[in-house]
C-alpha cells in the first residue's frame, strides 16, 4: 500500500491546475512579448517577428495547460490508513511519501480563489518536518478527511 496508494483526486482539480497554468503562461508570454511589440512599433521588427511570442505562448499552452495537468492528475494517488498517510505523485520524478500518523501535528484545509470556484479544497498535513499537501478534494470530502486524520492522530497517540 505504501508504494501503491489507491485513491485518486477529484477530476475537477485538472481544470483548476489548467486555469492557473493558463494565467501564468499568459503573464509570461505578455512580458516576453513587450520588447517585440516595442521594436515592431519602432519599425525595427516586421510583423513576422510577432509570431515568436505567439509561438512561445502556444508552446507553454501545450506543455503546461494541456499535457502536464493531465499527467499530474493521473499520477497522483493517496491512501490514508490507520497508521499512516501515503502519497505517490510527480510528473517525471515520481515521489513516494509516507507520513506516520504519530508525527502529524495538525491538519487544515485551504482553498484559493480558483479552487473555491470549482468547490475544491486542499488538505494540508503538518509535521515538525514540513507540510504535505493533498490538493483537489471536494469541500465535504476535504473536511471529512481533515476530521478523520485528526481523529486517527488522536487514537494513535493514545495507543502510544
Amino acid at each position, binding site marked *: 500500500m*505504501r*508504494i501503491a496508494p489507491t485513491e485518486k483526486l477529484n477530476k475537477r482539480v485538472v481544470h483548476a491546475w489548467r486555469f492557473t497554468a493558463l494565467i501564468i503562461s499568459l503573464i509570461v508570454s505578455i512580458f516576453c512579448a513587450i520588447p517585440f511589440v516595442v521594436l515592431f512599433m519602432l519599425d525595427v521588427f516586421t510583423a513576422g517577428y510577432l509570431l515568436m511570442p505567439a509561438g512561445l505562448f502556444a508552446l507553454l499552452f501545450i506543455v503546461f495547460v494541456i499535457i502536464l495537468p493531465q499527467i499530474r492528475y493521473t499520477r497522483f494517488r493517496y491512501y490514508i490508513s490507520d*497508521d499512516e498517510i501515503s502519497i505517490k505523485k510527480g510528473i517525471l*520524478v515520481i*515521489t513516494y511519501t509516507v507520513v506516520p500518523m504519530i508525527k502529524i501535528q495538525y491538519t487544515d484545509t485551504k482553498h484559493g480563489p480558483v479552487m473555491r470556484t470549482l468547490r475544491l479544497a486542499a488538505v494540508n498535513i503538518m509535521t515538525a*518536518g*514540513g507540510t504535505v499537501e493533498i490538493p483537489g478534494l471536494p469541500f465535504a470530502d476535504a473536511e471529512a478527511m481533515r476530521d478523520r486524520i485528526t481523529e486517527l492522530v488522536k487514537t494513535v497517540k493514545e495507543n502510544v
Partner: protein
Amino acid sequence: MSEYLREPIDISQPQRVSNAYIGVFLIRNLRAWIIVFLIYAAGPILQGDNSAYAIVPIGPYPIRIISIMLVAITLIVLLTLLFSFLSYRRIRWQVSGGEVHIKKGILRRVDKRIPIAKIQSVDISESLTERIFKVATVKIDTAGGEGDDGKIPCIRKDVSSYMRDRIFAIKNAEAEPTQNPAPDGLSAACSVPQMHAQAMNTGTAQVLLPNVVYRMPLKNLILTGLSNSKALLIALIILGGLSQFADIFFKTVAYESAYTFLSTIAIPGLIAIVVAFFFASWFISVLGVLISNFGFTVRNEASKIEIERGLIDHKTISIEKNRIQEVRISQGLIRRIIGYAEISVTTATLKVQAQSGGKGANEGVLGLTVLHPFISMNEVDFFLKTVLPDFDGRPREFNALPRRADFRSIRRYVLWMFPFVLIAWLSISFIFSAITGTHVVNYVSEHLLLIILTSLPVLIFMGITGHLSYRGKGVSVNDRFLSVRTGAWGRKYSFVPRRKIQTARISVNPFQAHARLATLAGTTGAHAFPSLRDVDFEYGAQYLEWSVLKT
C-alpha cells in the same frame, strides 16, 4: 559555570546594557567609516590630484587635505557618538513573567517578547571590541529564528552568563513542573550559589554543574587545521594547475622560440602568482580553523551540551539534546588516513505552530553544529555514549548499493566534469591560437593528441571518484536508526533516530525507474536529511515500511 556576579542585580526589572555599548558601537562603526574614508582619500592623494579639495580656498595642497580630513573625521565621530548614545538609551531587557523582553532601536524600534519555553539556545559571544570592554553579546534563539532582534549587545560578562543560567533554570523548571514547582520567588535577585542549591534540592544538580567532556589540546588544534580537507583540495588544485601550466610552458618553448620572452618570464611569473595565491588561501583556511576552534571545550549537562570556542570571537553555543535530529561523523581524505573525524549534529529549527489562522510553518535555516572537530575514530563511540546516550546503538554494517548503481555513479561524475574540461581547453586554444597567429580550428587539430592526453587523466580521475563514491555509499536500518554512509575519498556517516523522522520519502526519476533504483530521502525537524541516491527500489519500499513500524 557562571562567574559570581560582581553585584546582585534583579533581572526581572528592566535592565540597561553596559555603558561600554557606546564605545563598542563607536569603534565598530568607525572601523567601517575609516575604510570608506581611506578609499576616498587614497585616490586623489596617490594621483596627486588636488581638484577634489578645491572647495577649501586657502593654503597649499597638504593643508587643504588635512583640514578637509579633520572636519570630516570630527563630523563622523560626533554623528556616530550621537547615534551610539541614542541607541544605548533605547536598549532595555528583562527576564520576567516567563518571558525575555527586549526593547531597542532608534529608527526601527524593536519590542520583542520571547517566551522562555520557546527558547532553544542562548549563545554568548564576544567580538574583539567587546573583549576590550569586557562585555558580551547574548543571542537568544528560538525555533522560529529570531535573527538580530533576539540579540542583546554589550552585557557585562558576569551578567550575561547569569542571565543564561536563569533562563535555563526557568525553562527546566517549566519542563518538570511536578518535581520543581514554578520558582516565582526565584526570579528576584539571587546569586549563583543559591541557584546551585536550588537545583540540587530539586534533583537536577547536573543541569547547572559543569562537566567538561573534552578540552582540545594545542597539538590537536594544529592537526585539525592542517588536516582540514580544504587544504587537500587546494593542494590538488595547485598540482592540477601546475601540470596544466607545465604543458603549456613546454609546448610554447618547443613550438615558438620567438616567444621565449613569454615562456621564460611571463609564464614562470604566472605560475609563481598562482602558487603564492593558493598557498596564501591555504594558510588562511588553516589559520581560520585554528582561530575559530581555539580552546574548543565541550561540556555535558543533563539536557544540553555546551560548546565554547574561538580565539578572537569567543563563542558559547548551547544545544538542547532532545532537539538533536541527526548525528554526522565526517572525515576528509587526510583525516580518514590518520583515523580522525569531526562530529556534528543538526538541530530542529523548524517548528509548526498550531494556529487557527493557517499561517503555520515558520521555516528556519539549516542548523549544523560541530560537537567535536577532531576526534580519533576509536573514541567516537565513547564520546557519543557520554554526550548523547540516546544516539547509542546505531547499525554498524552497511548494505552496499546494487551493482547497476556503479555505472550510473561513474557516468554522473564524468559527465559533470566534461564541460569544465571542454571549456578549459577551448579557452586555452583560443588564447594560444591568437598568440601564435593560427586559426583556432588548425590549432585544435594540431594539438588534438595533447588535448586528449591531458583531458583523459582528468576524466579518468573523475571516473575513479565516481566508482569510489559508489563504493562509499551504504545504508542500513535497525529498530531505532537509519544510518547512511557516503563519500568517495573521505567518509561521512550520518544517522537519524526513527522517532525523529517526520516523513519518509523515496523518489524515482525516469533513469532510475529504468534501472529500478530510487533516491531515499525524508524530513526531520532540522530540514536536513542524509538522503542517498540510487538505492535498490525494493530497499526503498522497505524503508517506507520501516518508517511507520510500531516500536
